[in-house]
């Protein structure tokens, strides 16, 4: 019997993505609010909590349920990556940095996530709707990414308005 991918892999991947975001936003701290790296560390800790809960309730939770809450957490992590990309490009007008971010962070992480999601879907056979999974992933990323970037932009706009007053 071959060893299959567990749904918690998505939670582990998301935890690492949040840690990556934390370190990168720390390196680019002049461009982001000061609390952002710490917020991402807390988000990564939440991922660890995810894994802890999964382990403790392994026999209680069905695989379907474990998949969806791990996958949702991955969507949140990827949406944050996209949001930062949009924030750098649209709000801060740092086009070069935004392009570098999309090439070095956004695209590789989405590619890796889609690869794991598709692979997981195949190994689980017909248990998960594969097309819905892929379309859902892309749609969720777009919606959440745009929402988070809108949130960041709005706060930035508010700051600008306050300064004008």
């Amino acid at each position, binding site marked *: *019997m071959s*060893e299959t991918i*567990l749904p*918690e*892999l998505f*939670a*582990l991947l998301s*935890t*690492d993505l949040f*840690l990556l975001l*934390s*370190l990168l936003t*720390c*390196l680019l*701290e002049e461009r982001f609010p000061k609390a952002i*790296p710490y917020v991402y*560390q807390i988000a*990564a*800790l939440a*991922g*660890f909590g995810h*894994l*802890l809960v*999964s*382990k403790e309730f*392994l026999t209680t939770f069905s695989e379907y349920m474990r998949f969806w809450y791990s996958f949702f957490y991955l969507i949140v992590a990827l949406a944050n990556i996209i949001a930062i990309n949009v924030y750098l490009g649209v709000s801060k007008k740092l086009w070069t940095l935004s392009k570098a971010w999309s090439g070095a962070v956004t695209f590789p992480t989405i590619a890796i996530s889609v690869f794991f999601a598709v692979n997981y879907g195949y190994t689980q056979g017909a248990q998960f709707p594969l097309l819905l999974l892929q379309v859902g992933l892309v749609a969720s990323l777009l919606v959440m990414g745009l929402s988070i970037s809108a949130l960041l932009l709005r706060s930035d706009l508010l700051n600008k308005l306050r300064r004008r007053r």
Partner: protein
Amino acid sequence: MKLKKIQFRKSMKFLTLLLTSMIIATASAAMYYSLTMASTVEVYAANVVFWVGTDSGTKGLVVILNGANTTATLTGLRAYPNATFTYTDPVRVKNKGGTTAQLRLSPDVNPSANADDFEYVKFLLNATTSGDRKWLNYTSNGVSWTSPTGSTSWTTTGITGGSSWPIVVYTKARPAGVSGQTVTIVIKVDVD
């Protein structure tokens, strides 16, 4: 000077975050690994199985094995008043594996009925070497059954790969035992 201060502060902040990131990443990976360990219990076919002995079909004995040969049901075993009746090879325990397996006979469901009809029912794990042989004796004093309680007869014994040992059954009914009365005993073969 001011620039150096900022750089130092940023470095310290980054180092702190890096350290906590490493801790979180390691702990998460360890947690995931423990999950994979918890979920990769594999089912193996049993190496030690039952095998129908040469006594099956004789002396009223019928031996039925399940599909995986992991349970054996012996029916039609006879006990005669005041005489020991022996089934030398009703069912066998066979080690299909290549390595030695530790096994023992142990009680599962003890007899409770018709103690006034039987003297004893004894099971012997008839190992090739006499020193390795193990008994499991159920005796009756005419009022109640005495089942094996001590662990001395339950100690394990090693059966080499490819070997098969018969479980010999000895029966004896009381002189006043009523014909047609039955008793049911369930024993286990524990394998380490």
